[in-house]
């Protein structure tokens, strides 16, 4: 199992003239250290208008800076909102290819469609159309990357034959992923041969059924790209400290800051009745879990770290605790067959920068050695797409 980090670039109020600058600089310092310590991937989200929660609306720019400061870590561009009103598919293909080039072929390409009314309403996107838009995008983008004259007549994109350039450095193209918050999306990822990029902060038990179904379905996939990416990537929070008590204190700050900031934004499913957003997504899900956790904490004595139940906002599977605790928690994910875990390190700058850096060092020094990380980070299936070349980037 491999480990990575991801950034929301959360910028809390009160905003000073240099607040966003400081958050970006802190994140770049964390990314550089993570690369030096051997973390395998560095991801950045794409969000719009989610004030305080995420100021990462131009992730390709931020990730270019990450690529310039790092040497080995894969560069996770994800998820890119694959909806033409947000990002024209040609521009997505061009920017991603350029990022792959400047990073020396380290790009991981995540796709998604947004789950908040804040974003969809802001771009005037009909929530009922997002699945179709996303589907069309993920089918045309790999063709733009691999064909010299790509022309297309579709519902949301039409273009005469053109050579979309540059082409990605990785051949035939970077691994593709999709953000998964529901069992339905996990199946759709599998059917298209896309990696499962879990974006719900869930427990290993909650992931288990979804992952098993994904593994089963992907054997029969019709990949949209030139190869199948059958990896499963989970997300959770991370804060490691020598002291369990200290770790739990700062880890709780992190989780609570995330939940409080996320709570501001109406999930599509909460405000707009549509079968395409039955599952409320990451933001709502975590709020609900937070509520349950608070109720549990009030009802029972504090749980014992590493032994199933965990107390307060800290849930099973979170990389929060002293190194021994975190190893136990990561073993739960490993037993589930996760290929990768990526961690959110800070939110609302709730944890001082020096502590975030120390947490990264402790994880690398004490936790990483306990896991087999020999397989290449960009593992892809040997199964080629129908009529496509067999390739492993």
């Amino acid at each position: 199992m491999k480990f990575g980090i991801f950034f929301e670039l959360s910028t809390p109020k009160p905003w000073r003239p240099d607040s966003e600058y400081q958050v970006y600089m802190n994140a770049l310092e964390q990314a550089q250290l993570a690369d030096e310590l051997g973390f395998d991937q560095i991801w950045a989200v794409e969000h719009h208008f989610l004030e305080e929660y995420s100021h990462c609306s131009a992730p390709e720019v931020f990730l270019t800076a990450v690529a310039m400061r790092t040497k080995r870590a894969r560069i996770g561009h994800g998820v890119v909102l694959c909806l033409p009103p947000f990002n024209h598919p040609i521009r997505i293909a061009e920017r991603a290819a350029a990022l792959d080039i400047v990073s020396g072929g380290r790009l991981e390409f995540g796709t998604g469609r947004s789950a908040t009314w804040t974003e969809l309403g802001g771009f005037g996107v009909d929530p009922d159309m997002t699945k179709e838009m996303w589907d069309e995008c993920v089918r045309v983008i790999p063709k733009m990357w691999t064909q010299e004259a790509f022309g297309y007549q579709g519902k949301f994109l039409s273009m005469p034959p053109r050579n979309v350039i540059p082409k990605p450095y990785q051949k035939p193209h970077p691994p593709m992923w999709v953000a998964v918050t529901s069992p339905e999306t996990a199946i759709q990822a599998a059917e298209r041969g896309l990696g499962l990029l879990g974006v719900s902060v869930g427990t290993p038990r909650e992931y288990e059924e979804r992952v098993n179904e994904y593994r089963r379905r992907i054997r029969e996939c019709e990949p949209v790209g030139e190869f199948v990416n059958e990896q499963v990537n989970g997300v959770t929070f991370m804060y490691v400290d020598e002291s369990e008590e200290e770790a739990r204190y700062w880890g709780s700050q992190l989780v609570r800051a995330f939940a409080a900031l996320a709570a501001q934004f109406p999930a599509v499913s909460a405000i707009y009745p549509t079968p395409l957003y039955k599952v409320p997504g990451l933001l709502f899900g975590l709020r609900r879990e937070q509520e349950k956790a608070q109720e549990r904490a009030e009802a029972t004595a504090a749980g014992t770290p590493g032994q199933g139940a965990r107390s307060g906002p800290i849930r099973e599977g979170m990389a929060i605790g002293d190194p021994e605790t975190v190893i136990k928690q990561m073993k739960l994910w490993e037993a589930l067959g996760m290929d990768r875990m990526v961690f959110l390190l800070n939110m609302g700058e709730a944890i001082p920068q020096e502590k975030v850096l120390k947490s990264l060092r402790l994880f690398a020094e004490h936790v990483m050695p306990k896991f087999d990380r020999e397989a290449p980070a960009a593992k892809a299936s040997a199964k080629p797409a129908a009529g496509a070349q067999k390739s492993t980037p």
Partner: protein
Amino acid sequence: MPDYGWLEQEKLPHALPLAAPSYPPPPWPLPGARFLRVTFETEREALLRWLPPSLMRPVPPYAQILVAHYPESPVGPFSLAVQSLGARARLLVRSYSFEAVTDSQQALLALREQWGFPCRLGEVELRAAQGEAEARIRVAGRTVAAIALREGRVIEPETVRFDPILNLRMLSSLQEGQPPPYVAMAQIDPAYTIHEAWRGRAEVSYPEPSEGAPWHLVPFRGPIIAVHAVADTELPYARFIVPFQT
């Protein structure tokens, strides 16, 4: 030792509201109710001005107008219109009642005193047919709000969600110049069994703004969605009491 009275709290004087309310106690079953609800974006300042300090506003700020007709209730048929503000209590989605109108004198007392709806007596008209629905809310002869659903289409009932309601409840002070001795919010979570639903474009207007029933203080800044539904529901006991202050 002098003798003190023996009255227990459960055995209050018979004429006081607690012992002899002017309305049936909760829960009120409300079968066969018809709803038109519009959800729309509004102004940040409008929400912040009217939300209690323990609630936070969503981004973007939004509000709802729900017009309901209840053909059966313990006090007979009545209609209720509620304008509510999108809010978050702790981390959870809530709907904070800002203005309300009912057309039933009998329901009015219960809605105000028992559940805390900021209710006035008025006229509430709801019409729906062939994928279109309209409602008008009148107070003292003025149409303080009008809403509509246009170009409706049938949707799966289970996709329609109703947020828990927060109603402000206050005891007025009988001591001159003193603040209310009790201020809190009651959280009411009615259950809904939705039989049919449509969804369509939302329209909201305030044709005759009234200072006495100021629905216009929550400006319309763009539609989100309108929903029409037929459902069995209820007015239950409050589930939680939420503090007014943080």
